């Protein structure tokens, strides 16, 4: 359990505006996501928990251990907090090999035990073959796996992940998410992940804290926040999302594809969902701007247009089944008489949401 109440005030300077961080992050979830735009106070919250920033007021409790209590004048050093901190760009020490990096986190152990644990960790994270390489010679994915392995070797109370996937391309991200999932299952330790990527937040989070301007504006399960943004501010941060239930009616692991029967009454092609069987029910999300809308022809689902509203240079289209899409105003204007449209759901844009 993580319970962090943090208040910290920054007076403005010539280059920066005054800023107040005033948040309460309390979670029992396996992986809680701190989501929000840059400068919202997410990383500062993580730094406060790890002991790199000292709040003016507040209390930070992890499980039964008090890490910080302003009222009691208690503030454990970062070394004694035992927070596994995985920072963007991995922060593996560039002058050490990967094995030396891992051994650095296990200095407290005697030589034999250290060697055993480092070896085990390298194997678990599929890094044995590159153990003798320096970080500069590793791929982005290997570096991030190494950083997590190193953090775990220090036997942390929790894992703090500050935008760990930034700089990784799509394929490496997916690989990294799978690693996080493994860690979650194997180590059963609370994790806090900072991201400004909504897809990442939805894919990974058991719980989500939406940050804006130094405050938590909403918290709860990601899909609940997505379905019911508490305020327009939150809705604005989340973008426009279509959320619906779907059932896997066919799947082809070799082609990494599936066929989905969706709640609103249509069938679409989907990606392969590892760990799910034929007949599994999923909760899916897709952003409105990711849908491709055409007046006729091509692959896609034919949907009846119910409503339309104009935005700046775009038109928002509401179809039967509650599906919302957006298209450029110019493309719409020529075909505005159309009652039915072909809506394509790109498989890569479909997100499986935690229900």
């Amino acid at each position, binding site marked *: 359990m993580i319970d962090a109440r943090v208040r910290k005030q920054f007076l403005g300077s010539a280059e920066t505006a005054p800023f107040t961080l005033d948040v309460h992050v309390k979670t029992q979830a396996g992986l809680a996501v701190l989501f929000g735009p840059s400068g919202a106070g997410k990383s500062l919250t993580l730094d406060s928990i790890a*002991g*790199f920033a000292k709040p003016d007021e507040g209390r930070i409790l992890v499980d039964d251990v008090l890490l910080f209590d302003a009222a009691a004048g208690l503030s454990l050093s*970062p070394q004694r*907090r035992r927070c596994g901190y995985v920072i963007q760009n991995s922060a*593996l*020490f560039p002058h050490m090999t990967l094995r030396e990096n891992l051994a650095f986190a296990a*200095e407290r152990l005697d030589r034999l035990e250290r060697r055993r644990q480092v070896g085990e960790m390298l194997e678990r994270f599929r890094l044995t073959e590159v153990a003798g390489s320096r970080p*500069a010679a590793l791929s982005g994915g290997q570096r991030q796996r190494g950083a997590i392995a190193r953090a775990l070797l220090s036997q942390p109370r929790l894992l703090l992940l500050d935008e760990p996937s930034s700089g990784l391309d799509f394929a490496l991200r997916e690989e990294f998410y799978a690693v996080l999932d493994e860690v979650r299952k194997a180590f059963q330790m609370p994790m806090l992940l900072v991201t400004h990527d909504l897809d990442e937040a939805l894919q990974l989070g058991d719980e989500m804290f939406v940050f804006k301007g130094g405050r938590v504006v909403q918290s709860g399960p990601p899909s609940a926040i997505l379905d019911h943004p508490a305020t327009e501010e939150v809705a604005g941060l989340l973008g426009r999302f279509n959320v619906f239930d779907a059932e896997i009616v066919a799947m082809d692991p070799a082609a990494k594809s599936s066929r989905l029967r969706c709640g609103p009454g249509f069938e679409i092609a989907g990606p392969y969902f590892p760990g799910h069987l034929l007949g599994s029910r999923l909760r899916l999300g897709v952003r409105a701007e990711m849908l491709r809308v055409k007046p006729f022809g091509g692959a896609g689902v034919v949907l009846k247009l119910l409503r339309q509203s104009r935005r700046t240079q775009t038109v928002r289209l509401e179809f039967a089944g509650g599906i919302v899409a957006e298209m450029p105003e110019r493309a719409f204007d020529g075909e505005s008489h159309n009652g039915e449209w072909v809506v394509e759901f790109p498989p890569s844009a479909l997100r499986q949401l935690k229900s």
Partner: protein
Amino acid sequence: MAIDWFPLWLSLRVAALSTIVALLAGLWLGWLQTTKNYRGKDILDAVVTLPMVLPPTVLGYYLLIVLGRQSALGRLYEWIFGQSLVFTWQAAVLAALLHSAPLLIKFSTAALESVPRRYGKAARSLGASEWMVFWRVTLPLAWNQILAATTLAFARALGDFGITMMVAGNIPGRTQTISVAIYDAVEGGRGDVARVLVLVISAVALVSLTLANRLGRVSVGKATH
């Protein structure tokens, strides 16, 4: 032409000793300036920089005041070692130190500051003590730049003239360093001796600068990860 090589060996010894002391001071002050927040940090920085802008005669004068026979420190030195510090080769070491240490301290601080903070954060979160963070993480990452600065400081210590003249004097065979010997040779009309010594000292300085440049480049390459 008979050349006395004593000034060259004395200069090398003086420069080596002063560089070792300057390196230790540079590491300690660099660590202090990059890891601690304390009152008077800016003042200390200004005091360390001061010798770079003051004329050598002023620095020499200060040293004479602080270490001369009339001063408490000077008397203490005399009581311990049985002789005055002024006009000894040890005074030449102090002169070279004052001439070269500010450069080394400034560069070492800059090198330690240039190590991205995320490495220190990662190390601390892994349980490493402040001592371990410095020796195992920060220093190795800044080491090439500090070595480059050390080489520069050595070259600079080798070339001190003004402060050395004021506190160590020009005693052949005892305190006469190479730069003082060159001055002495020119003054005494021994142009051939001056020429050889000038060429030797220029070659040593050139080698030092080339080495410093190479070390500096290696560290930049390393930091790009």
